[in-house]
């Protein structure tokens, strides 16, 4: 296999550094001995498609050396037939007409390798999912279609060229971005599997959002000890370095060999600080305390909770006035003049675990901001925390509410024409998934803690979807939570009622009681706010990581490659990808860690060779392809000696940085670009083969 390392160490990794080469016309060797194998798939194909006829028709095609039909091509017998024919007949291309290539493409490529052929000289024809199973009542037509698909495959196969996997030397170290449960879980798994980890967290403290919770469903474990146990395990690993107050400011390179520039903002506080409480008390600055979701205030020097990780305060430089009062009170351990530090690290792969944000209701949305008695569920979580700002008491104006109404789906499942788009101009059309159970957990806790408090639960739809979560719904009914269901187009109205016994009135048209309009007097409305993507646009700009229509980072495929970004070497962990609960987030993190471990298992990374390629004999160096390409360094112009002593610019594709999308192909006015194995002329040959087949007209 060809080893391609396109840069000298320390150079811009996105810049190809291949030496100038002489332009010579590409002359692919056309396949002349194609083996065609038609699978019965038991009867899955042959019960509908006349496989004998398909093989017979294939055998008569020019360039086909042998055509057989075999009961199971994926069986040992089927694979052996390929290997035997390669050796006996000298096949130079192989077509297997069988099931979807998603199932056995790799199987047949390996068979070619065992026969001594380049594995990329194989081509599948999908005659099961796209012929016999799609047209079971039209056997004649399905057979005609199968013949056409085989003809097309042969036509393309004859034009295939042998390819080598792209090989990149790999750095056996990873970067995990985000110090919440997903990032911690990924870091721990990676470390235990022998992969070095740099774990960075943008805020001054580890733990993410989970440490804001009191207990976690469905186990009802106290949240903070659970997270701190994970933190302690990560800290115990020798090959993990943890950097808080740190973010990525630049990123170059590619899978196996990323170079990342990190900026660490100084904490402003060192272990020499012995008088934390005095320093915090002395600070004159007061700002909303984000850890408590704005319920109370904190100082510019602050610590979210005793025993945080690290167990040290930090200075919020955005609000600190550098007055020095904290230093005066503490005497030592505070440095108000520290500057940010930039460091460069290398990593073979990156796990993105940057988490989520809670939806922030608009002013007026269900009375939010119109009354301090309309709060969000995350705020209630902080109130219910015994170590929280109210000591675990749910209280408004110093009193436990007599009556509470939860409203579901606030900022989730939004619809055009009813909801207003957020600041990014987007609606949250998705379900945030975790809110139903979280709401019921809080409702149950309120009923248990305050039996005299009436709890109403107003929902559009409700689903406690995970293992051991349904009991929350059952328990809430048993505990006397009163459910009301509203239609999306007729949402509850929250009004402030001056001078009334209860300060808020919630009016709901309840579909559970056949549309009865019910007025619910309450002391408190709790909005069950959804999950929204965190703004990581700078990182997205650096990496070009694809983002879904919902604003979350997008996986390559939700089922086949669920934690991989389309950017090779970039893995997704947790709520950066979608709304998830802690169980799902840590599962995704472990999956991402496993992917990284497999990726970096050897000293190099191999990638599929389906990347763009340039025919230098056609390329005139116009550079239009550079404009069409969205990936930094994937395509560039370089000097090429076109004849003795004459050097001109020609396009060059960096096979490591290229993603193989083909966006550059149509930009070329002289058709000098193609994607290997997905070439336009190959497609045209397929079309010619399909249209050469007689029309299927009403065939049955």
């Amino acid at each position: 296999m060809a080893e391609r390392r396109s840069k000298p160490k320390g150079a811009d990794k996105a810049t190809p550094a291949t030496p100038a080469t002489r332009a010579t016309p590409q002359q692919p060797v056309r396949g002349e001995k194609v083996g065609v194998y038609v699978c019965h798939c038991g009867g899955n194909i042959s019960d509908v498609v006349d496989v004998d006829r398909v093989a017979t028709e294939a055998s008569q095609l020019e360039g086909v050396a042998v055509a057989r039909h075999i009961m199971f091509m994926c069986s040992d017998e089927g694979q052996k037939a390929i290997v035997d024919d390669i050796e006996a007949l000298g096949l130079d291309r192989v077509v297997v007409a069988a099931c979807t290539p998603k199932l056995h493409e790799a199987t047949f490529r390996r068979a070619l390798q065992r026969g001594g052929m380049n594995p990329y000289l194989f081509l599948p024809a999908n005659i099961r999912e796209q012929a016999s199973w799609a047209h079971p009542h039209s056997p004649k037509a399905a057979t005609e279609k199968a013949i056409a698909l085989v003809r097309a495959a042969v036509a393309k196969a004859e034009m295939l060229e042998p390819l080598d996997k792209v090989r990149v030397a790999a750095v056996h170290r990873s970067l995990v971005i985000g110090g919440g449960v997903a990032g911690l879980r990924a870091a721990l798994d990676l470390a235990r599997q022998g992969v070095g980890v740099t774990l960075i967290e943008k805020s001054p403290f580890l733990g993410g959002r989970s440490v804001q919770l009191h207990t976690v469903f469905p186990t009802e474990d106290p949240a903070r000890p659970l997270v701190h146990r994970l933190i302690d395990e990560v800290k115990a690993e020798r090959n993990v370095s943890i950097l808080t107050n740190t973010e990525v400011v630049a990123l170059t390179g590619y899978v196996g060999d990323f170079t990342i520039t990190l900026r660490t903002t100084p904490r402003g506080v060192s272990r020499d600080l012995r008088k934390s409480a005095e320093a915090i008390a002395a600070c004159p600055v007061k700002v909303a305390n984000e850890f408590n979701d704005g319920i109370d205030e904190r100082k510019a020097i602050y610590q979210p909770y005793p025993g945080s990780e690290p167990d040290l305060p930090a200075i919020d430089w955005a609000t600190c006035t550098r007055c020095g009062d904290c230093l005066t009170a503490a005497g030592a351990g505070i440095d108000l003049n520290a500057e940010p530090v930039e460091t460069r690290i290398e990593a073979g792969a990156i796990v993105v675990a940057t988490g989520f944000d809670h939806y922030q209701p608009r002013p007026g949305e269900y009375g939010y901001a119109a009354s301090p008695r309309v709060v969000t569920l995350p705020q209630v979580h902080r109130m219910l925390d015994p170590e929280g700002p109210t000591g675990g008491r749910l209280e408004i104006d110093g009193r436990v509410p007599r009556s509470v109404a939860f409203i579901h789906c606030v900022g989730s499942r939004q619809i055009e024409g009813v909801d207003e788009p957020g600041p990014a101009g987007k609606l949250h059309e998705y379900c945030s998934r975790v809110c139903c159970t979280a709401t019921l957990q809080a409702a149950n806790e309120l009923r248990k803690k305050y039996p005299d408090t009436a709890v109403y639960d107003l929902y559009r739809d409700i689903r406690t979807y995970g293992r051991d979560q349904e009991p929350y719904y059952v328990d809430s009914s048993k505990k006397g939570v009163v459910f009301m269901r509203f239609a999306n187009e007729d949402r509850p109205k929250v009004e402030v009622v001056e001078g009334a016994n209860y300060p808020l009135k919630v009016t709901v048209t309840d579909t559970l009681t056949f549309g009865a309009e019910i007025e619910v007097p309450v002391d408190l409305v709790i909005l069950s706010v959804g999950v929204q993507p965190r703004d990581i646009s700078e990182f997205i700009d650096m990496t070009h990581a694809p983002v879904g229509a919902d604003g979350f980072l997008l996986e390559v495929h939700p089922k086949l490659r669920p934690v991989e970004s389309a950017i090779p070497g970039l893995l997704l962990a947790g709520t950066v990808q979608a709304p998830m609960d802690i169980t799902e987030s840590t599962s995704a993190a472990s999956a991402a860690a496993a992917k990284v471990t497999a990726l970096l298992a050897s000293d190099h990374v191999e990638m599929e060779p389906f990347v763009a390629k340039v025919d230098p004999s056609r390329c005139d160096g116009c550079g239009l392809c550079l404009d069409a390409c969205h990936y930094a360094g994937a395509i560039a112009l370089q000097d090429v000696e076109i004849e003795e002593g004459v050097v001109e610019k020609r396009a060059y594709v960096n096979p490591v940085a290229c993603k193989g999308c083909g966006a550059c192909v149509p930009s070329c006015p002289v058709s000098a670009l193609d994607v290997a194995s997905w070439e336009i002329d190959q497609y045209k040959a397929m079309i010619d083969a399909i249209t050469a087949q007689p029309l299927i007209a009403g065939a049955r």
Partner: protein
Amino acid sequence: MTGTPIDTQGTRMLVIATLLCSYPGIDATGQAHMEYPPNTYVIPTPDPVMFPESFYMHCFEKGVDGILIASCGTDSPYEGSYDQLAARIPKVYALMKARGISIRRLKLTAICSVCTKAFLKEVSDMEAVMAELGPVSGEMTAVPA
């Protein structure tokens, strides 16, 4: 479409399917034994953004009567590719008009990996267009000098 008589009207439809979205979706349609007309030919591609305008014209000239571009839509894993693809379609339409080809014969759509019903609907719609318009050869004019 399952269980309904299939009359393919003597036409051919090409479906350009993305490896990560619509191709698995079309496979899923077959796996569910949901039927669609057998004159529908699927060619896989990493991303249809790779096809130049001339490719579509080649297809029509060779006798493809309708083309469905089953893209990933805005969920494309490739940065900016859907916008580039969408911007190309009007240029293809212009070429089609110049040759007298109804632009209804080419449709850009998005089909996901589980969008079986959406796929069947798009195929059905294009079948209806092809049935109404007949073979493309009937409306194609000679290449302008």
